[in-house]
């Protein structure tokens, strides 16, 4: 019964919590940018803001459902993928996940103090920690991808230069043996 009520509670508070959480993420950008990210609702004119907002909403829901890793990744990846190439340190890029703890503490202060949902809040904190770790995994894979792209381009250029100069003949190449 308590679980049911808890779910209703977090659903009721969702709009307020998401607003704060989204604000926390976009306020990591300079003020002029943050204003734009909040205001522009078109997902093609504002991919950063809208991807972030929709991602956070879906992640919030999943935190209170099954905490399915694949679902979490599908919404967290697009957010982290953006932040991994922007001007953020690793902690700045991923830290917004942990910010949710404080937001929930503030928004549900009364309920937490009532100790009615101790188990649920404890589980939630653990899940937010997990979320942070998933964010770090995604962040690292994005950084590795960027470095791999750089390495590939450098390699391809060198390879092409050699090939152009006639220094490379691959096995099976019709020009082999000429």
């Amino acid at each position, binding site marked *: 019964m308590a679980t049911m009520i808890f779910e209703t509670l977090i659903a009721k508070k969702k709009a307020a919590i998401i607003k704060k959480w989204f604000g926390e993420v976009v*306020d*990591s*950008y*300079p*003020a*002029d*940018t943050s204003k*734009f*990210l909040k205001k*522009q609702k*078109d*997902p*093609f*004119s*504002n*991919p*950063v803001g809208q*991807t972030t907002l929709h991602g956070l909403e879906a992640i919030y829901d999943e935190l209170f459902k099954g905490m399915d890793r694949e679902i979490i990744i599908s919404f967290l990846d697009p957010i982290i*993928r*953006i932040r*991994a*190439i*922007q*001007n*953020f*340190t*690793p*902690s*700045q*890029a991923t*830290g*917004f996940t942990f910010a949710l703890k404080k937001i929930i503490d503030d928004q549900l202060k009364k309920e937490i103090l009532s100790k009615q949902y101790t188990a649920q809040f404890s589980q939630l904190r653990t899940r937010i920690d997990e979320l942070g770790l998933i964010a770090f995994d995604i962040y690292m894979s*994005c*950084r590795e*991808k*960027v470095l791999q*792209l*750089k390495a*590939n*381009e*450098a390699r*391809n*250029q060198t390879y*092409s230069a050699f090939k*152009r*100069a*006639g220094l490379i003949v691959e096995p099976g190449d*019709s*020009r082999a043996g000429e």
Partner: protein
Amino acid sequence: MSDELLKPDELFAKIDHRPPKTDWMSTPVQIRKGMYCYASNYKSVEYLGLPNARPWNPLDDDWKLPENWQEIIHQGFKERLEKFRSFKIFMDICVRCGACADKCHFFIGTGDPKNMPVIRAELLRSVYRNDFTRMGKILGKIGGARPMGLDVLKEWWYYMFQCTECRRCSVFCPYGIDTAEITIMGRELLNLIGLNIDWIATPVANCYRTGNHLGIQPHAFKGMLDFFVEDVEDLSGINVEPVYNKKGADILFITPSGDVFADPGTYTCMGYLILFHYLKEKYGLDITWSTYASEGGNFGFFTSHETMKRLNAKMYMEAKRLGVKWILGGECGHMWRVINQYMDTVNGPADFLEEPVSPITGTKFENAKSTKMVHIAEFTADLIKHDKLDLDPGRNDNLKVTYHDSCNPARGMGLLEEPRYIIKKVCNNFYEMPANTIREQTFCCGGGAGLNAGEDMELRMAGGLPRANAVKYVHDKYGVNVLSCICAVDRAVFPALMEYWVPEVEVYGMHELVANALILPGEKRTTDLRGEPLPGMEDKADE
């Protein structure tokens, strides 16, 4: 990623992740790795006879500038204000309404307010006000003016090379200010004291010396095309026999050299060879390649007007030397902006050439009446319209295609319908991206104007985000697996961009799609140009 890795105690002290609240003018520039391109190689600068050739590094405090660099910039600014009326107007009339602010792909992707076109222009305007207006001199910072200093110069350099001159912002400016032209001027001024990037300077020097950005010498250029001829023969049994440097040919064909050496542009190049062979066999098309004018692109355009003129002239000199009637140009972006917008006044009119007429359909290419250079999209669309090509679009049925309007052909010459007409005739599955990301409002690939180096990958990924985001949308909604385009820089930039943002999507040039669908008389073809089985030929392709 930022370079600033903090120690634990510093991390706790700075746990507030909010950026400084200072306005843009009071926020000092931070030159970040991944966001800038390497400095120009002094040998390239020297070869071109451009000023202040020396090794330098943007991360060093000392940029090894001439002692009187401030005077050089001031004089250069003054000369350009007098010479280019548009520049003077653009400096004066902006009311900072902000209509352009959120239209730049670099602003959208990086979130850096200095990438708002209005602020990028303010970088120059602030110095303009200080140096050339009375109000600026009196009011100083309150009036948006500031004196030129080393910090301002570094900011200029950093942000002038975070603009691809794509002109999307100018579409939205109620005054018609072309912020790309401000970047062009900014880069020109920087070049006066030797502050170029190497991805521009060395291709320019190569082009000036050898005829193309990559420095491929004439015999090697022919060798590269011969490889493609062999590849086409392997997959179709047809020898496409291109003609080189033929004096008295009807048409000279010039395309960006990028398509000669890097995938997937190479397939587009094979597409040209196949199309020209078909037209030669069927209609007697008399077209020649040149191993000297072997570059359609013009990175001089990203350096200075004079450098652009020098490189552009080479193509027309070659057309004159060969005695052709007119020039056909391949799939390229900025090459067409140079031709369409600048060629006539910098090197034209090309009176020694004829007004272009298709030898096959008799169509007069009115758009190229003065420049004498026809875009291949117009040429091919006209052939299809007159039913001159034997096409089987079913051979592209494994592809679900969307089309990226390359910035310069779209906004620089209004080439919007022809590519779509062609693609729809050679592919059965075509899907448009959302309306505010295509045609005049197209988002840049993020690597134009000389920014498609490897070292600025973060910048490219951020700048390309709005485009990739729209591609992702049609990929998720319709299963699009091909991003087609008509620009060699796009073909160089998009594969990495797609790999990061939408890895399931591959990049195709338009004439690769045309050549896949084109039925050559006598061909034995079971695969497409990439060696993949044609739809329905899966069994035969394995044999």
